[in-house]
């Protein structure tokens, strides 16, 4: 039952996320359209070395047994990037209005929700968190480059577009919902029977925890998106090259954002019982760890760049008379934990109402996987596309990510 819920949620809501290589195929039909409604979700996550079997436990609960921990621990290095995204977007394209009296220039409105997660979990941090320090007594645990980030925000956008090739741009007001960012630039942990040493240089910021839920307002921001679809000659036919930039902007988190900074080395050898005997009880709950670790707390606004997504790809041409088309491209998301991703695939449309696309890719938050996409097209009125960019991971606990995407398009003529 839980698995069923998991997959349903994955498809429809995007608790965890997937990578969408292209939107609906590009068509150049627009003359008789009045309105197009485009709804898309992308739900994906990817990890370089942490298997789905553990990620699933974190997402949906359950006991992580030793075997599960061991399988992942043995694969880890000090660089174990991970990340994911929930992308939900609903756009309304007005075809009837001719902006500035230009036949092909329309506008569109949209609302969406984004939830980014990315980070890096060094092997020693994973081991420390999952096994405790007892197996590693006498060993230095390197926690350098530990980081995690979570940004969640609503997006209200208005933009202009070219009705024929769907090129366009919009500006968005961002409604900051939730924020967490922590980074340990340098960190060491060492323990033996007599001492625990902790060296830490880093900081953590997070939005006001008293306001939670999808409606919580904790900041605001602005962003722009653009999408440039360029028709080109492609051998004896034509093709469309897409240059797309999304989420290029910032969020300013409000003054209730809390930041902790630490740059200290701390050693703990236990409480001195002689202090206890002399009346300076160490067991009275008054130990100030913030002071001991030299952690400084502050509150105030924090500005963050949101992870922008840049895609350059040869995309599918909806109106092409070729049943078989190729697609390929490269994508970048501007976080430290995203490796530039290249992908390539073939698109086959045997009949007008159905098409599928198979891809392979390398990079992203994880590394290598395949993708599969199914399109169901009801003439030029209604279309549904269902895809995954992690076909192995989505269906296997041994994979390193999962991805399910759904697109629904309706057109009113």
């Amino acid at each position, binding site marked *: 039952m*839980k698995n069923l*819920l*998991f997959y*349903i*949620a994955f498809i*429809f*809501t*995007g*608790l965890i996320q997937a990578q969408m290589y292209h939107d609906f195929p590009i068509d150049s039909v627009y003359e008789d359209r009045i309105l197009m*409604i485009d*709804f898309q*979700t992308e739900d994906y996550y990817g990890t370089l070395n942490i298997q789905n079997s553990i990620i699933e*436990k*974190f*997402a*949906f*609960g*359950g*006991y*992580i*047994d*030793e075997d599960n*921990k061991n399988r992942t621990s043995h694969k880890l290095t000090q660089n174990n990037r991970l990340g994911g995204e929930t992308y*939900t977007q*609903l756009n309304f394209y007005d075809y009837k209005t001719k902006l500035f009296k230009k036949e092909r220039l329309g506008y569109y409105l949209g609302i969406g929700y984004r939830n980014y997660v990315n980070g890096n979990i060094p092997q020693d941090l994973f081991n420390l*968190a*999952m*096994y*405790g*320090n*007892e*197996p590693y*007594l006498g060993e230095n645990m390197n926690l350098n480059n530990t980081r995690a980030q979570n940004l969640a925000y609503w997006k209200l956008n208005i933009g202009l577009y070219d009705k024929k090739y769907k090129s366009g741009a919009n500006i968005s007001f961002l409604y900051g919902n939730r924020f967490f960012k922590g980074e340990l630039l340098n960190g060491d942990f060492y*323990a033996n*029977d*007599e*001492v*625990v040493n902790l060296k830490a240089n880093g900081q953590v910021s997070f939005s006001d925890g008293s306001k939670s839920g*999808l409606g919580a307002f904790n900041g605001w921001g602005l962003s722009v998106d653009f999408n440039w679809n360029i028709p080109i000659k492609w051998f004896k036919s034509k093709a469309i090259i897409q240059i797309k930039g999304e989420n290029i902007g910032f969020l300013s988190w409000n003054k209730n954002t809390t930041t902790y900074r630490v740059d200290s080395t701390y050693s*703990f*050898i*236990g*409480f*001195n*019982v*002689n202090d*206890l*005997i002399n009346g300076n*009880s*160490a*067991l*009275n*709950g008054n130990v100030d760890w913030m002071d001991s670790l030299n952690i400084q707390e502050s509150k105030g606004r924090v500005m963050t760049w949101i992870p922008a997504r840049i895609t350059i790809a040869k995309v599918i041409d909806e109106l092409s008379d070729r049943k078989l088309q190729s697609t390929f491209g490269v994508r970048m998301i501007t976080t430290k934990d995203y490796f530039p991703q290249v992908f390539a695939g073939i698109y086959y449309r045997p009949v007008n109402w159905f098409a599928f696309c198979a891809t392979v890719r390398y990079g992203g938050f994880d590394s290598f996987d395949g993708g599969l996409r199914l399109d169901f097209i009801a003439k030029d009125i209604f279309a549904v596309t269902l895809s995954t960019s992690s076909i192995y991971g989505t269906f296997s606990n041994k994979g390193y990510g999962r991805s399910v995407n759904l697109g*629904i398009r*309706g057109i009113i003529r």
Partner: protein
Amino acid sequence: MIQRIYIFNLILISVIFFSCKRNGTSWDTRWAAPIAYGTLSIDDLVQDPIFATNPDSTLQLIYTTNIVDLDFDSLFKIPDTTITEKIALAISLDVPPGTSFINQIDEREFDIENAQIKELGIKSGGAEIKVLNPIETGVYLTITLPGVQKQGVDLEVTSFVQAGTSSNPTEFNLSVDFSGYIMDLRGADGNSWNTLISVFEVQSDPNGDTVYVTNLDSIQIDVAFKDLVPDYGRGYFGNRVLSSNDTIDLEFMKKFVDGSVLIDSVNLNLNIVNGVVVVASGVVNQLTSINSTTNTSINLNHSIIGQNININPASGSWNTVTPFIYPININSANSNIQPFLENLPDQLIMDYEFEINPLGNISGGNDYFYPLSEMGVELQLDMPTKFSVNHLKFIDTFDLEINQNPEATRITDGELILTADNFFPFALDVELIFLDEMGLPIDTLFSNGYLQAGIPDGNGKVNTPTNSQIIYLVDQNFMQVIENSKQIMIWADLNNSSHPMSYDLYNHYLIDFKLRSNIGLNIQF
């Protein structure tokens, strides 16, 4: 349609989110960390500085305490006394402004039972003076106490009292502090005792009117001496008998709750101290060692018990007063002091009697006491720390306040490991008892063994500590116990495996210990 899908999405998010939270993610970890460390010497264990080091580095127990402490003011009380004077003219006449029309000298006697005091120094206390003026002009009232002096100056108080009437005299109140004054109580002739001279002088208001004062217009003055506590006295202190049956608590001994100790030798002095220049006598009727835990008591058997002792006066005066000390030596040879102490008394009961001036006024009224004069019985224990213990149980309690969330910290199992280097020639078993706010035990951590004793050489001296380790197992309820505990009681069992062979304690003896944990934690969120 699209809106419906979106609402459906949100509902599903909520359902799955909350269903996940219910299940929670969990895994098991194991953590090892130091918890506490310390070095416990005999001074740390006993806390009171009662040990001295002998030339051979052995420790000598030197413990001194006053088991009877008599404040002289408890023997010699000055009762609260009120002197009421009504002063009036002999005849009726007109009194012009600024006229001194009354000047009256009186003698008043303090009722000091059975004593003839010539001179008294006042440590604290004073007098409340109330004046009722029926004369229809204001008056200046001057009260002088000749012979009541501080730094050679008589005590004199002048106050202005507003005009009154016969039917409605004006009341005036005044407080006078007598601290630091010395009172000459020999009276006007210089041969009396307990007698105070007072002078009352009344002058009419220089700015008032001439008034007609009759011989019935008497000014009433009440002088109430209150809470006078002397710290110096001269005279004859009377024949007084003070008897008491005192219980003396030995707080640190209450920590020993069971077991036995064999003491090699004891040397104890009971010093009867007389810091008062007065002849006295005394008798110790009974001295009893009481162990309230085992409910056993042992009476001291010694020749001094029940025997009357003549106590000479102290010598010197003021800052040079030297008390007379009557020492009573009590040792293993002349008494049962060893079993008396081996009873591990946490209380002593002493039944005694002191008599001041048993032969009457043989000093000719020249008894003295001074601010530094003390009278009492001092116990002085001076003995080598050579003993043997047989499962001597010792407890001590410390406050404990650790705010933990037992739900967040789920211990699955674990152990606390105590490692120690022990010089002491006895083994040590330590158990930790957690107490709630009512002081009732919640849980006890039992050890799996003893911290091993230091091994003495041929001379009975431990030169190298013995290293050993004991383990306390903790279970999943441990954090709940910590959360609910307000105190931790340390219960220790000291045992000499070669009992009754006794060993000296040396000044280098200590226990150097470290406590660390190895705990299994189930992480959940």
